[in-house]
Each structure stands twice: as structure tokens, then as C-alpha cells.
């Protein structure tokens, strides 16, 4: 059996609040194999974002271990985590998070700036990714000139530009209408078919049916973990 992309053991995260420590995640175990497509669901406040931020190396757990592509990242320092965010995984946010003053091409190329690629490589890779998400012709536009759905495509292109094997997305369709959401999910499905592992959070059951496995959170625990019954063709 192949090594899991993600292996999480007893992962916990407590936030310091005015009222004392608040446990948002209470010992979660999960394994994600290469090529899987997982939807994480659950009510508001159940710890989904907390969990995704840990998976995305944006935050560090207060307990437990997290093995990303075999190495334990739970106790890595900030800069080591930055390198992982840059090379090993791509993160897509609900709010797109593009830099407003940069052209779409420069936005997509930005991760390559931090990995030290030269200008020509950056330009070529950003073009390729923009073409892949169907926005090549807007390369020189600013984010404000395109629609939300298009902005999310750009954000996905940016997540892909360093050729990671893992894409994480926290409610990527949360700000989009249902038609556009479908298009974005189709894009994720395509990427998954190309072999990229996808883990995303969604509130909507329709969206979740694009995934092949659904994990449900409640109150900081995983309460169910099953394959999608009516997987799309």
C-alpha cells in the first residue's frame, strides 16, 4: 500500500480565549491516500477551518501529530512550514485572497518568486496555469476586473503553480452562485483525475457529491467518514 499523503494522529487544537482555553479540535485521526478526493462537512463551528489550517501548515496543533508526505510537521518552525506551503501543497480560500494590485499572471507567479524561480520560468508557468483554468487571455488584467468565479480559478491556478500533489480548499465555493460553484467543482474533479489529491470543506451536500469520500465533523470530532454513495460518473 502506498504511503498516505496526510496522516493525522490525535490532532488537537485549543484556542486561547478570554474565557480560557477553548478546544476547537479534540483529537482527530485521519488518513488521506494519494489521489483521493475528500469533502469535509459539518455544522458551523465544528472545527473544519481549524482542521484545514492545520493541514495547510498555516497553523500548528496544540497536541497530536501530523505527517505530511511522511514527515511530521507538527513541531516544525515557521520557515519550514512556509516552505511546505510553498512547494508541497496548494491552498484555496473562500475569499480568493488575490493581491489586488497585481495582474493575474503576477498573482499566479507569486509562489514561484518565493521558491526562487527565474523570471522566464515564472512567466511560463503562470501562463500555463492560467491557460489550464481557462483564463489565459486575462493574464494582464487586475483581479478586480474579473468575476468571483474567475478569481477563484486564478486562486486555483496559483495553488497549482508549484506543481503540488495536494490541494486544500476551505469552502472554495462559499462565495459563489450555484452555477459557478458547479464549474469550480468540475475543475477540482479534473485536477483530481490528473492525480492530484483534493481535500475541501463545504456546507452544501450537492457540492460534496463531487468528492469520492465525505468526512463529517461535529464539535471538534470526526463523526462519520464514508464514500460518496452516488458518485458522479
Amino acid at each position, binding site marked *: 500500500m502506498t504511503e498516505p499523503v496526510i496522516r493525522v494522529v490525535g490532532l488537537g487544537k485549543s484556542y486561547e480565549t478570554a474565557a480560557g482555553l477553548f478546544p476547537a479540535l479534540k483529537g482527530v485521526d485521519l488518513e488521506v491516500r494519494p489521489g483521493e478526493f475528500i469533502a469535509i462537512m459539518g455544522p458551523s463551528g465544528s472545527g473544519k477551518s481549524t482542521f484545514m489550517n492545520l493541514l495547510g501548515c498555516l497553523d500548528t496543533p496544540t497536541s497530536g501529530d501530523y505527517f505530511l508526505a511522511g514527515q511530521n510537521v507538527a513541531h516544525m518552525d*515557521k520557515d519550514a512550514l*512556509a*516552505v511546505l506551503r510553498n512547494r508541497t501543497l496548494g491552498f484555496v480560500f473562500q475569499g480568493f485572497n488575490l493581491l489586488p494590485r497585481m495582474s493575474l499572471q503576477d498573482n499566479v507567479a507569486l509562489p514561484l*518568486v*518565493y521558491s526562487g524561480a527565474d523570471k522566464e520560468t515564472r512567466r511560463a508557468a503562470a501562463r500555463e496555469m492560467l491557460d489550464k483554468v481557462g483564463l489565459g487571455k486575462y493574464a494582464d488584467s487586475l483581479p478586480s476586473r474579473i468575476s468571483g468565479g474567475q478569481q477563484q480559478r486564478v486562486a486555483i491556478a496559483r495553488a497549482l503553480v508549484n506543481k503540488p500533489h495536494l490541494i486544500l480548499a476551505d469552502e472554495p465555493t462559499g462565495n459563489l452562485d450555484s452555477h459557478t460553484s458547479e464549474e469550480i467543482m468540475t475543475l477540482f474533479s479534473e485536477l483530481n483525475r490528473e492525480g492530484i489529491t483534493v481535500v475541501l470543506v463545504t456546507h452544501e451536500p450537492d457540492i460534496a457529491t463531487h468528492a469520492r469520500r465525505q468526512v463529517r465533523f461535529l464539535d471538534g470530532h470526526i463523526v462519520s467518514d464514508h464514500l460518496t454513495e452516488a458518485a458522479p460518473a
Partner: protein
Amino acid sequence: MMLKAMLGEAWLAMGANRLRTALTMLGMVIGVGAVVIMMAIGQGAQYAVQQTISTMGSNLFIVLSGSFTAAGVRSGSAGGPTLNVADGEAIAELEGVVNVAPTHQGRRQLVYGSQNWSANVVGTTPPYLEARAWTIASGAAFGDSDVRSATRVALLGKTTAQNLFGDEDPVGKTMRIQQNPFIVIGVLGSKGQNLDGNDQDDTVIIPLSTAQRKVFGTPFLGSVRMIMVQAESADSMQRTMDNVTSLLRQRHRLREGVPDDFFMRNLSAAAESEAETTRTMSILLGAIASISLLVGGIGIMNIMLVSVTERTREIGIRMAIGARQKDILTQFLLEAVMISFAGCLLGLVLGLGVALAINAFTGMVIVISGSAALVAFAVAATVGIFFGWYPARKAARLDPIEALRYQ
């Protein structure tokens, strides 16, 4: 992250809020401009003093006649000079003495044709010219024989020559001092102002004997009010002055306990202290100007702090896609340094412009040195890094999640 890409980004960030960038820069522009102007003026003043000192003649001191009664009560000049030409000759024999010139001077009216001019008339001996490092611009100097036979010859300073003779060549012409005709035998090279701001070229030099007989009318022939002495070197100055003191006390038969009947003044020391004063002034000016540079630096820090807060979300996004702490640090530091450098460059131009304008309109001596520009640049870079460091570090230490959540 690569420097070139970062420079481009810093440039974009500066362009994103042009007015603010320009105002921040203005602080640096004024700071650096002030430093450049102050240094130009300060160094100019030092240069001017140095220049004046070099025209005065080096290692000079003067012995002035004083008149004391036996009881030590000073009776003023009425008592008559206590020095004489023979004293000068004796001083000249001392070791370490290069030139000795008994001198008698005073302001007198000169007449040539219909022109009148009042100038400082100096009666002295030929070593005077050497001690004061006077050059002869045209004609020739007088010699010892002129002093011996009290000939009526005169050397004119440039100012005197111009005012009395205009465009005419004075050499060979006859002019009058106190009704006495004098033949101009030479014109002196120009020296400019002395340390007191008096025009050294407003002068006439004539043989001492002639001056005493025809111009000043000294009661005791051979007595003088002043003897100028040039020592061999700066180091031997004090020793030579001490030797002159004991020699004169001996010659004047002053018993122990009786005060000197003469004074001595070290001209070179006075000049040195003047030079020291301008040096101090120049440092003070620089220090005051540096304060405005400091204020400019604080302006940069202030704006960078605002910028970091405003761009918290951007920082979060950059971190989320892989910016390390040092990448963010470098980015903000680079912005601060670029603003500081651009401000410095403009300040340099402004400073030079104003310094040149000051020179053009007031004639004040200014000195613009490459080292001053270099210092200003180094300081600007340091200010940029120093004041940019704290905001940049603040940015770099942000937590990615917190930063992303910032609205």
C-alpha cells in the same frame, strides 16, 4: 525570494500611494539637503580660514612695546616706545629666528593727482615681506640700502593701487603721503581679507626709516612700537618667544620682579584658534542638520508602521503561499531603504542647488566634497535600515492565520 523581483515589488508598493511616498521622502530630502548645505558652508568656512592663515605667513609672533613706570603702573603710549631697531637686530641673532622686521604702522591719507585714499601705511624692513609671505606682482621690492638711506619709495597693496591709480600702472609714478612724495616701485600680490575681516591689500609698505622721519614722526629715532618675528617652525615657537623675552629683559636691564616692558602676541596661535572655532562650528552645523535627518528617519518608520498595518492581509496572503519571515522582512526593509535612498538622492540635488545658490548670491565660500555626499548616502541607507527594521520585523512576525483574518 529574489532581490530583483523584490525591488520591482517595492517599486510598485511605493507607486501605490504616491502622495504618501512623496511626503515620506520629503523628510529625507530635507534632512539630507540640510546636511549637504551645512557641510558645504562649514567646510567652506574652514577653507576660507585656512586660506587666510596661509596668506598671513606662518609661525609669526609680534613683540609690542609697552610702557611701564618703575612702579609697574602702565602709562600708556605716552611714555614712548620701549623697543628699538637694535632690539630687532639682537633678536635676529637668536637661534631659531628666521626673519625679524621692526614695524611702525598707521592709517594715512595718500594722494595721487586728484585721487585721495586712506590706507594702512607700514614702515618696515625687507624681512617683513618674507615673513608675511608677500609676493611682488609687478616692479620690485626695496632693499636694506633703501632703509639705511631712508629713500622715499613705496610698495602698494592691490586695493590701494586700484583706488589710487585706477587702470593706470602705478610703478614709477609719484604719489604723496603726508605731503611727502614717494615713488611707487612695486605692486604687491593679492592676499584678501585677514582673520579680522580687514582687507590686507589696502596697504602701503615703505622703508622703516622713511616712515619714522617723514610719516609718523617718531620722537626717538630708532625706537619702534612693534617687531615682527618669524620662528623656524611651529614647534620652536614657544622656545623662541621665551628666548626673546629673556633677551629683551637683559637688554632693557629689567631686574627680577620688574614686569616686562613689552608684550608678545602669537599670531599663529590666534589663527589656529580661529581655525579651531570654524572646525567646531562646522561640526555643530553638521550635528544640527543630522537631527533633521533623524526626523526624516522617524517619518519613514511612522509610515512603514502604518503600511504594515494596512497591508496585514497582503502579508497573510504572501505567507500563505510560502513567504518566509525573511522574505517579508526583506520586502519591507527594501521599501524603507528605497524611499530613504530616493529621498537622499533628491536631497543631494537640493542641497547642492541651494549651496551653489548661496555661493552665487552671497559670495560665501562653500566647499562641496565627494566625501560629504558619500557620508549622506551612507547615513540615508543606515537610517532606512535602522528605522525600517522595526516595522519590517513586525510584519515578518505576523501569524499567517491572524493576518489573513485581518480586514
